[in-house]
């Protein structure tokens, strides 16, 4: 099987007010079709920058990202994006939000309706079809956002800390739902998180990233069968191992955050 996403020698330099910040340096990663990858690290490690490079929002300054044989130039519906802030269109009802991508694709009305209905049912949103996002809880909003990208049938889902703003029960609930959807549709998922437990619960492989410059510190494969039990010994051993790796970077992050204001 060929990898679906090729990331080779990717680097990204931001220059703000004369200072250059190396956000990503020499990232190499291959993602197989249907694989569930978590990008894990403290804030400032460039995990969202890497995701945005794959999404095409902000292209890398070095190296290349190749998806399905084509270099990424711009965002596109082949890579569905789910944002932490949900990014639902508040002026559209739930139904319209989900249908929007299909309307852009100019699919026939009947087909759109059918598809939206199926998605509403799959994500337990039937009762909210005609509601506006402002009437929904955070968890419900993120369900709609997931339904919106699923509607596109994109083979790849890119998720930028999608459950970061949710309470822990809603979070677990949506994690299970995401795994169910992933199992059913066999999407390739790249999922950014700073929660160690979340990454172990979800991923096939966890990519631990370093703090500035963002590089890959270690790639950890998780072989535990799903549904994974966060109270199991194996889960917790892995959690300790990852916590050590992440803490090293978190410490560098903290030191840097203290140093920066003093330097200015």
């Amino acid at each position, binding site marked *: 099987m060929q990898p679906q996403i090729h990331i080779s020698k990717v680097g990204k330099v931001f220059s703000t007010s004369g200072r250059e910040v190396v956000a990503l340096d020499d990232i190499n990663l291959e993602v197989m079709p249907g694989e569930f990858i978590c990008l894990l690290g403290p804030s400032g490690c460039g995990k969202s920058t890497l995701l945005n490079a794959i*999404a*095409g*929002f902000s292209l890398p300054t070095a190296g290349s990202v190749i998806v399905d044989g084509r270099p990424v130039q*711009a*965002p*596109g*519906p082949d*890579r*569905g*994006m789910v*944002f932490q*802030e949900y*990014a*639902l*269109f*508040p*002026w*559209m009802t739930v139904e319209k939000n989900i249908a*929007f*991508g299909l309307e*852009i*694709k100019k699919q026939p009305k009947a087909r759109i309706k059918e598809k939206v209905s199926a998605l509403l049912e799959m994500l337990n949103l039937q009762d909210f079809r005609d509601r*506006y*996002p*402002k009437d929904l809880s955070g968890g419900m909003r993120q369900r709609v956002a997931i339904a*919106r990208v699923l509607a*596109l049938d994109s083979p790849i889902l890119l998720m930028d800390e999608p459950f970061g703003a949710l309470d822990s029960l809603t979070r677990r609930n949506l994690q299970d739902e995401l795994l169910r959807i992933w199992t059913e549709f066999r999407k390739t998922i790249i999922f950014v998180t700073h929660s160690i437990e979340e990454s172990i619960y979800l991923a096939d492989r966890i990519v631990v990233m370093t703090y500035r410059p963002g590089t890959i510190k270690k790639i950890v494969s998780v072989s535990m069968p799903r549904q994974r039990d966060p109270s199991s010994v194996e889960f917790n051993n892995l959690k300790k191992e990852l916590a050590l790796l992440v803490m090293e970077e978190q410490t560098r992050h903290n030191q840097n955050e203290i140093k920066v204001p003093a330097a200015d």
Partner: protein
Amino acid sequence: MKNIPARLYASLQGLLLPFVLLAIWQYLSAHAIVNPQILPAPTAVIAKWWEYLLPTEAFDPSRSGYLAWLFSGEMIHDAYASMYRVVVGFLVGTALALPLGLLMGANDRIYKLFNPLIQILRPIPPIAFIPLSILWFGLGNPPAIFLIVIGAFFPVLMNTIAGVRHVDGIYIRAARSLGASQTTMFLRVMLPAATPYILTGARIGIGTAFIVVIVAEMIAVNNGLGYRILEAREFFWSDKIIAGMFTIGLLGLAIDSGMNRLNNYLLKWHRGIESN
């Protein structure tokens, strides 16, 4: 049901001050403390208002239908004339300002091209255009509507620009990743996202239009509410002046509550909306 006495009490409370003022006013007039030509009694104003509202001639079925007769009063004609100017001027002003504002908000080059000119013209009060508008358009509706167009144009324009510029980048990113074309992005993302700003601009614009119409009618036209109260001054009809002002106030209130309803309807998705 329990709330009714409380609400009744609140509205009674609200009526208290106007009632006291009316009573003082009536007292001053009734005892001839002020000259009735300077300040006529409230009762005289109400009588005049009623007379101004009613048809001037007796109903004659051979000349017109009943409804046409009922609305043939001078005030109805004046109010209609003023409203016509406000609505036409406002619609033309908005029709010009909205597309330009959307373009200027979305495109930096267009913004830089137009902005200096707009910054020069915007501080000129629409009223200052009166002499020029009479020179250009003569008397009657054209100069009045021209002034109202100017009055409505700038508030709508400035708010539309601000609205488009403040569209949250996350919506743009979400729409791009869903594959939206430029046109779709413009019509289905930027425009609705800017609606709260645009409606604020429209509300200010129609308020300005209403101010301008009264002034324009005092100078460039010979009907409408603004003309009528100035005409009444020539004859020293202070009761009619106040009756006319009262009508102007009622129309302003009607316009504002109409805009409010439009606002609530178009922004029913919006988070921080007031429900009044």
